[in-house]
């Protein structure tokens, strides 16, 4: 990318120089540019996986822009379904914005998962990047709640019943299940109040939590740079290749963004999201109600446990098992902290294989069992 001008060189002379100098003294632009140029991105056979964080970020930007456009027409509460119907069938390009929002949401969840597993297998959570791992897990959690809360907002048959099933989960919490359920649903059952609450969560609370955490996550990535996978780190420094993040890797990142943007738009254009029948609490649930694919493995874990254990025990044990794995997963940087590959490193790798296989297996089982 030799043709990209260096940020300082381009303003050395000419009329822009004065403007730059003026702004630099007040904003510290040179420091920022130095910070941006400081990070080196290693180049090796696994470099492909470095792009997935960027793809997740692009999806988030798409979500932000399309989300704001949807806000212009969406009305929570009683008119939720009607307003989404208008967006999908009446408003010019409303269907496109809504479809892009939905597709981008799905791709974002997918990209975040790929990003997490690639970080995991490259052992990029080790010292000094523990907080990168924890903020990333936090972001993933928020993304999942984004997905769950956004899914209800159209209030069609499918989203209504899927949410109803999903919200039965908290009731397995010992002791406080009913209370939590009541707070989340805003009443004894899923209805207008639930949409209103989910709406507040989806467009205000979650973004407020997400954006500072994302800022921290990105600042940490910038500070520590990309981690080397163990195999690559073992090679002598003279054999390793790397490119500066800015502008070289950034340009490749942009090319990836262009591809991702095309994928989102093609999916949204050729396979727009339809809207089902309006939710009707009195109707019987349609056949094969199931959660979105990214909740399928957890859903199936509970269902599977329910098959072997009697009554609520199945769900409680399933939840417990899930929680234990999640905690171990989150604390992995503390467990597998050695810099050289050792026994703990191998345990971590095998845990990763187990989790990936388990999630894929449960998801496939879940869809097969529909």
């Amino acid at each position, binding site marked *: *990318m030799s043709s990209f001008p260096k940020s300082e060189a381009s303003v050395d002379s000419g009329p822009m120089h004065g403007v730059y100098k003026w702004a630099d003294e007040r904003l510290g632009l040179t420091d920022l540019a130095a910070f941006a140029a400081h990070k080196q991105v290693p180049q090796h056979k696994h470099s492909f996986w470095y792009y997935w964080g960027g793809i997740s970020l692009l999806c988030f930007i798409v979500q932000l822009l399309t989300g704001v456009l949807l806000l212009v027409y969406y009305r929570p509460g009683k008119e939720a379904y009607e307003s989404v119907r208008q967006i999908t069938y009446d*408003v010019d390009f409303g269907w496109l914005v809504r479809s892009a929002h939905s597709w981008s949401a799905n791709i974002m969840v997918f990209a975040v998962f790929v990003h997490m597993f690639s970080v995991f297998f490259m052992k990029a959570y080790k010292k000094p990047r523990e907080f990168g791992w924890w903020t990333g897990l936090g972001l993933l959690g928020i993304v999942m709640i984004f997905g769950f809360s956004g899914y209800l907002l159209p209030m069609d048959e499918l989203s209504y019943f899927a949410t109803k099933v999903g919200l039965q989960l908290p009731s397995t919490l010992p002791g406080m299940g009913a209370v939590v359920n009541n707070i989340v649903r805003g009443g004894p059952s899923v209805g207008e109040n639930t949409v209103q609450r989910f709406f507040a969560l989806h467009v205000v609370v979650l973004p407020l939590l997400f954006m500072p955490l994302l800022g921290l996550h990105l600042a940490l990535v910038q500070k520590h740079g990309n981690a080397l996978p163990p195999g690559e780190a073992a090679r002598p420094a003279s054999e390793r290749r790397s490119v500066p993040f800015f502008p070289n890797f950034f340009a490749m990142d942009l*090319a990836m963004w262009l591809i991702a943007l095309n994928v989102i738009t093609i999916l949204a254009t050729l396979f727009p999201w339809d809207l089902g029948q309006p939710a009707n609490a009195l109707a019987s649930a349609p056949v094969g109600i199931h959660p979105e694919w990214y909740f399928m493995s957890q859903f199936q874990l509970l269902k599977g446990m329910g098959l072997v254990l009697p009554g609520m025990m199945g769900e409680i044990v399933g939840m417990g098992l899930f929680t234990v794995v999640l905690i171990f997963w989150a604390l992995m940087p503390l467990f597998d902290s050695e810099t050289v590959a050792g026994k703990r490193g191998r345990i971590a790798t095998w845990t990763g294989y187990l989790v990936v296989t388990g999630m894929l297996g449960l998801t496939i089982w879940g869809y097969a069992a529909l």
Partner: protein
Amino acid sequence: MNYPVWDIPFAGSGWVIGIIAIFHVMISHFAVGGGFYLILAERKARREGREDWLDVIRTHSRFFLILTTVFGAISGVGIWFSIGLASPQSTSALIHNFVFGWAMEWCLFIVEIAAIIVYYATWDRIDAKTHMRIGWLYAGVSWCTLAIINGILTFMLTPGKAWLAVAGTGRESSEFWAAFFNPTYWPSLVLRTLTCFALAGVWALVTASRIDGFAKPELKSEVIRWSSQWLLPSFILIPGALAWYLYAVPESSRQLLQLGVGTIGSGLFTQVARAALVTTMSSATILAVVYFLAWKNPKDFGLGHALAVVFLALAATGATEHAREMIRKPFTIGQYMYSNGLRKSEIAHVNQAGFMTGSLWTSGDTGEAMFRGQCMNCHTVDGYRAMRQLLHGRDRAGISKLLGMLHDVPANSPYKNYMPPLVGTPAEITALGDYLGKLVGAAAVDPVVQGKALFEANACNACHGDGGSGGPLAPALVGVGTRLPGDKLADFLKKPSDKAAAGGMQAPKLSDDELKALMAYLNSLK
């Protein structure tokens, strides 16, 4: 239905044409634009005395020769085979009208093929001046083949008033030139010519990307940048040419294009607008990729990048041609022949004489033959525009209602802009309804249930009481079937007795089928 039906399950015969044609368009437009690219590149190289350029151009001319003559010719013949099978009536109409057009096309085509073979075979064997003359001959003649086929293609969308006035009289070819230079001829020719130049640049990037950037950085940069420039005129002028084209197409076609802007609702025809969006987006991406990867960074521009641009160009051309085909609905030849091969002028006659009378190639079930003859040009049972999916949830009466609307084509019919009218005698249409009903497993309507609804809809229960239990104004209807057996009940309903009429009884306004249903209900009251 004078011809056998070509049954392509799942995809439908239209897509066979579509796939071959989109492939052909990519190559044939390259064959036209690429000719100009070759000769202008050669002229530049010779004027500047660049031997290294000439080597690249010679390599490109071999790639060009093989791609255009082999794949262009094969796919061109493929179009003939597939349109002849999928739309024999339209193909026949085109041949009748344009046989001399194709004769000209064929002559030009022979010159074109001969010129490019000679051009490639005579590098360094004849003097530069003659070689370039052959190149110019190729470029000129290949553009003429486009100018001719463009007349026939645009004719199908907008045949023009003069030709329509003689259509069906047997003197169609007297308006050959009016049909040829029809209302969309010129905007389409400009659009296609611009596309040719853009595709010449796109394909040239494939050859240029294979120049070794480490060994010959200068050469690679120059050729890549020069080739990138070929996309520029198209990207600047195509929006204007497109506006001109859209101005020239019929209002109904423009409406079809706009339908999908506001909704994804009305069946699959909203996909025209969505296809146009794919064109816009892939074109914008081509512009970005060519600018950032080829123009700004030519030395690193690899084969993968070039193929990505080719793929994007394929998406753009494919989506555009798809949208263009779709805005022609419900016709294959505008205002003259419907997409299922029926002429507009023969509709009234077929409704009277029956669709099956002219169908020499069918035997067996009338309903199925009606489906194959009138629906299968655009629909499949299970795949593309699948009947099972589109009719899902309709009962037999709902199917009848839909078929009635397709047959009568009332002014408010949402289908009239994309679907040909359904033709045939009432018996044939009922047979088609039965066939479709069986196909989607539509629940036959219980006449008693339908009759009860009619009983209430016509306010019979206002006087006779709910369930015919009787009221102060009129007698109970329980057991009416025994009191008025057989046709007597029907006669009474059509013309109530004087006594009943004096009491306020009116004959309900019902179709024969509805009357039957009402009687079934009344007879069930015991």
